[in-house]
């Protein structure tokens, strides 16, 4: 290391502290302390019937394990992720690939049309879809009726409420994912695609053998972002269904909210928090590891 380099880069402890302390204080108080506190609180019985918290061991976890609503909540959360994420990624990829083509002066219009839901709060987006899914005067049922499909009760239907929530979520999120893919596409060197063209590769062949493999790293990021987003769905459920009918759209954060702020069971809510944090981090770790392995093999 050259002497002058060490002179400017080796900082005194107090100076480093000056730069990091503002962030570290808030990280400690609102990110890391809450995790510790959730673990501690999850071991307490602390609810309406026991307003004075007392140690209860693993009681709250046992309560959850035996709770049929919790099982339904897990099912709904996973189902939502497994259906809505692949669908939104496919749509985002389609949009991005098309928007990357030279489409002339209409291109910014198309781009705005798909991206604008990113600016719409999920709570407001949910309102738009409540109106669209209205069973008697909603636009969705009207056009389905024109296609000869019988009326669906959507948000009041045990089967169709969750798909309705998924649709609103996909509508809101695809634009953002498409923009991420568009950024990935723009990073692919033009001459690589041109070389493929010269070799006689058509649009589909270029897409399959050049573009998609090179978008691997973007996809890892897109999947991670989508998993984080989908596990946190709350606003749409709160506005559209309140978890109903019969908990068919109840998802993990909504159930957490109900336990804490409707039923005032802080102990069970804390146990849910712990399970959620562990679940989220391990799913993200698994996704990233799995996808990175595949990305490197395929390229």
């Amino acid at each position, binding site marked *: 290391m050259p002497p002058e380099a060490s002179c400017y880069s080796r900082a005194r402890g107090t100076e480093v502290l000056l730069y990091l302390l503002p962030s570290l204080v*808030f990280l400690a108080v609102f990110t890391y302390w809450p995790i510790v506190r*959730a673990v501690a609180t999850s071991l307490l019985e602390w609810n309406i019937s026991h307003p004075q918290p007392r140690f209860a061991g693993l009681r709250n976890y046992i309560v959850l394990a035996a709770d049929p609503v919790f099982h339904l909540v897990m099912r709904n959360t996973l189902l939502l992720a497994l259906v809505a994420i692949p669908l939104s990624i496919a749509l985002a990829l389609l949009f991005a690939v098309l928007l990357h083509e030279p489409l002339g002066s209409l291109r910014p219009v198309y781009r705005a049309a798909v991206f604008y839901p990113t*600016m719409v709060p999920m709570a*407001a987006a949910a309102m738009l879809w409540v109106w669209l899914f209205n069973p008697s*005067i909603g636009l969705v049922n009207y056009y389905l009726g024109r296609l000869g499909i019988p009326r669906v009760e959507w948000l009041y239907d045990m089967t169709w409420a969750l798909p309705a929530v998924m649709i609103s979520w996909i509508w809101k999120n695809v634009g953002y994912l498409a923009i*991420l893919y568009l950024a990935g596409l723009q990073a692919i060197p033009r001459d690589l695609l041109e070389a493929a063209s010269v070799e006689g590769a058509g649009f589909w062949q270029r897409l399959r053998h050049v573009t998609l493999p090179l978008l691997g790293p973007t996809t890892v990021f897109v999947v991670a972002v989508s998993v*984080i987003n989908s596990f946190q769905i709350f606003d749409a459920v709160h506005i559209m269904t309140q978890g109903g009918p019969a908990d068919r759209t109840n998802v993990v954060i909504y159930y957490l909210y109900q336990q804490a702020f409707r039923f005032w069971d802080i102990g069970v809510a804390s146990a849910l928090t712990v399970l959620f944090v562990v679940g989220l981090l391990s799913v993200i770790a698994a996704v990233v590891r799995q996808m990175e392995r595949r990305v490197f093999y395929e390229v």
Partner: protein
Amino acid sequence: MPSVPAVFERNLRALLRRRAQTLLMHVTVGGLSVLWLVPYLWAVAASLKARTEIFTATPQWFPSAWQWSNYLDVFRYAPFGLYLFNTVVVVLGILLVQLVTVTVAGFAFARLEFRWRDILFYLFIVQMMLPIHAVIVPNYLTIKSLGLLNTRLAMMIVFWASGYGTFLMRQAFRQVPRELEEAALLDGCSRLRMLWSVMVPQVRPTLVAFSLISVVTHWNDFLWPLIVTDTQDVRTLTIGLAMFVQQESGADWTLLMAATVVVTAPLLVAFLLFQRQFVESFMYAGLR
């Protein structure tokens, strides 16, 4: 050797095929665009109709008489002006502090050497994956014991450290040539002074991108403000909308849609005016 007409025909075919392919692309992406626009436009249409006019057998895209008064009614029935004010205060209050915290922390991680640097940086990264929604219950208890329930400060303070912002700034500062910094330090600048007058101007695009993303994110926040507020005077737009929905549950759709448009309009107008800037910021910040 092929005859002249044969060559001509082959070129013509290739041209036609390319044209057909372009047309197909326009039809696909155009159709999807319309599909994506319909939900919002349909809400705008409803917001301008008379109460009775929404119950038509076939959908009417244009009202027979434009009911601008629906918008006045929305502001009369709920204090959306106050909600807007609160939202702006909260969003800017979050952003201004974040800009300071992420700049200094990003700089330290990019340019200084110190013990436990990697471990500390890891603490910032994990926060990106552990959003506030994961730990609302313990945070609610903390805010409660700090006596901050039902304040605007409560809605801001939990977001004042940003692992994501710190990460972005670290990347940006790493791109700045070291010579700039050395020259300033040789001139006798203090490091903090150098950071402000030499480094910050170099990373302005990243600061703009982060700012836009922060504003959009917190403008759209819902769960946290919902939990820590319980009176009208501190509520933000999204919470105001949810309360309005409950209050108007007699389902006057024209008013509900007008309220939805009111809540979404400020950011959408900003987006339409600065589309390029918004799109580029979201692209850039996703790229890493």
